[in-house]
């Protein structure tokens, strides 16, 4: 069950290692993230989830192992290099500017220009299309400042921003951590639609309810190692918790 079904994956980590001084943060992490699916990365605090996503986002370069993008080895020299490939990470703080409106946030750093001036109409049209594709329908006006949005809506804007930047892999760090029930549902629906649109989604989450609701695949980390990965049908909440807390499971469900 820990074997990788490799070849079709958009992003693959092969034996990736990372240490900080004497602390081995990642040891031999092998992980596949296929396009069009939601891969949940689960694990307890300190299991190495953050280090893994920061390595994929290009913030930290691995000490060993390989990162394959579309089957080819790549070197992620920095966040820019990762973004150039189409890897977009949405951290918990979402990196939105509260004083700017939805359109302005979605295009921040990539503004459309006409005669060297901001082309608001073109940006607004494009932003509207993207939000419509993602069926983000709750915002009354895409010209309202992000400060006036709910947590779920802010998350939606961050996702739409990634989609509009033509992200092929969207990494979401605890997207539902600060949200209520209805907002969580809204974000999970959005994640499903994102994957249905062909994007690879990597969801980092503590919340097993969310994971089982939205994920196609689950990967569990324990003390810097990736202990198991596979389709969600191969897990039950009990085995997932066992993997997360002990790194192994005695009563693993047989592969379907």
């Amino acid at each position, binding site marked *: 069950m820990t074997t990788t079904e490799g070849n079709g994956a958009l992003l693959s980590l092969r034996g990736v290692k990372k240490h900080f001084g004497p602390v081995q943060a990642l040891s031999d992490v092998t992980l596949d993230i296929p396009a069009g699916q939601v891969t949940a990365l689960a694990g307890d605090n300190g299991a190495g989830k953050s280090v893994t996503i920061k390595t994929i986002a290009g913030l930290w370069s691995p000490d060993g192992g390989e990162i394959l993008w579309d089957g080819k080895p790549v070197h992620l020299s920095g*966040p*820019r290099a990762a973004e150039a490939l189409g890897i977009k990470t949405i951290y918990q*703080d979402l*990196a*939105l*500017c*509260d*004083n*700017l409106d939805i359109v*302005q946030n979605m295009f*921040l*750093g*990539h*503004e459309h*220009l006409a005669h*060297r*001036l*901001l082309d608001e*109409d073109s940006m*607004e*049209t494009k932003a*509207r299309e993207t939000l*419509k594709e993602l*069926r983000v*329908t*709750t*915002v*009354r*006006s895409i*010209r*309202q*400042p992000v400060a*006036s*949005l*709910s947590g*779920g*809506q802010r998350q939606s804007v961050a996702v739409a921003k990634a989609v509009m930047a033509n992200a092929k892999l969207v990494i979401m760090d605890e997207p539902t951590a600060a949200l209520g029930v*209805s*907002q969580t*549902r*809204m974000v999970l*629906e959005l994640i499903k639609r994102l994957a249905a649109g062909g994007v690879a989604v990597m969801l980092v989450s503590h919340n097993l309810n969310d994971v089982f609701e939205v994920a196609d695949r689950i990967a569990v980390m324990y003390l810097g190692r990736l202990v198991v990965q596979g389709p969600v049908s191969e897990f039950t909440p009990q085995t997932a918790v066992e993997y997360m807390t002990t790194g192994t499971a005695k009563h693993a469900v047989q592969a379907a």
Partner: protein
Amino acid sequence: MTTEQTEATPDEGPAPALSETELAAMAPEVLANSLSEYLLALWRRVKGGESGMLPIILGLVAIVVFFQIERSSFLTNGNLVNLFEEAAIYVVLGAAETFVLLLSEIDLSIGYGAGVGAFVIAEMIAPPINFPWWLGILIGVAVVGFLGLIQGTLVTRLGLPSFIVTLGGQLAFLGVMELIANADPTAVGGSIQISPSSPVYKLVLDNMSPALGWIVLAVCLVLFAGLRLNRSRSRRARGLHAEPLGVTLLTIAMVTVAGVLFVYVCNNNRSPLAVVRGVPWVIPFVLVIILAYSWLLSRTRTGRYIYAVGNNPEAARRAGIKVDRIIIFAFVMAGVTAALAGLIYESTQSSMATDIDGGQLVLFAVAAAVIGGTALFGGRGRMVNALLGGLIIAVVYDGLALMGVAVAVENIATAIVLIAAVALDAVVRRRSSTR
């Protein structure tokens, strides 16, 4: 037909499955399709602390009404024009400070920056150098812009607090100004005269002819109306939400009335002794600065980045914005604008002397911006706020002077207005954040 309208009625929308839960997350803002709906939405925004302008305009009107009741000479055209001329320097200094305040930085040096700029301009156009007036202004602007560049570089590259860097700048620029005055043997007692034939002199002390005032107004109004209508039409044509036509027409009508009243007041004779009429040149000068800066902030990428960096520098950095460059740019613009304020100062005085009180001018600069509604903690504020704030300061000083109040009391009164404006803002803000 706009997409918002379909979105507003989720039953017809593309994703009814989600609507009930998502409706709970609906933002309170209302989109208007008619004038009355728009006014209602505007009122809600004001109550919610979203629209900064209306309370300030109402405050200005209240202060004007108070002074008019106290002194019937307040709203005479002579006093009004005088007041606009006084406001000019506060407005321009406020605009200078707005650039840095938007980044939640502060520039305490712009008072003496104005001093340095004014001195350089005065020296350049006076004998023995005798440069043409425009070259003198250009050099003055460049010098103070360069001083801003130094300050901005210290703030960003060394990570020093702008409060300290520009406090040092305030003192250093005073010294620079005195050095220039000492080096020039013609600057008797640290004072240098501006020739009455120079446009620098005429900026504040001379007026447009009444006919020219009307022509300029007419051209501006036609341009304004044309741009607004065209923008509204093109947005409709692209299927984007545009403000209701009634709102556009009402705005144009209000601007027209204000413009006509303004030029009318300026074009009446305002002197009991000789005939003095026409719009002082400094007024279009200030308006052009405010318009150009507003355009810079709202229509260019750099302007957009100033707001982004001011609100969330980390998000801006991750979006690929060169945060340091934006901060340095703001300090350069503060310097450039301070030099223009210096130009107005020396034109008002018809000479330039080292006794300019740069310390007080910088307080007026911050006060003008903040009274007008610009936040001290970055990301919120517009150039028009400095215009309104500067006008309020001028009204308070002018009105109190008419009432024969001592200067000491004038200062206290302005301080009260400043604190009241910030307090009002804080109260509205608290209410909107606990909503």
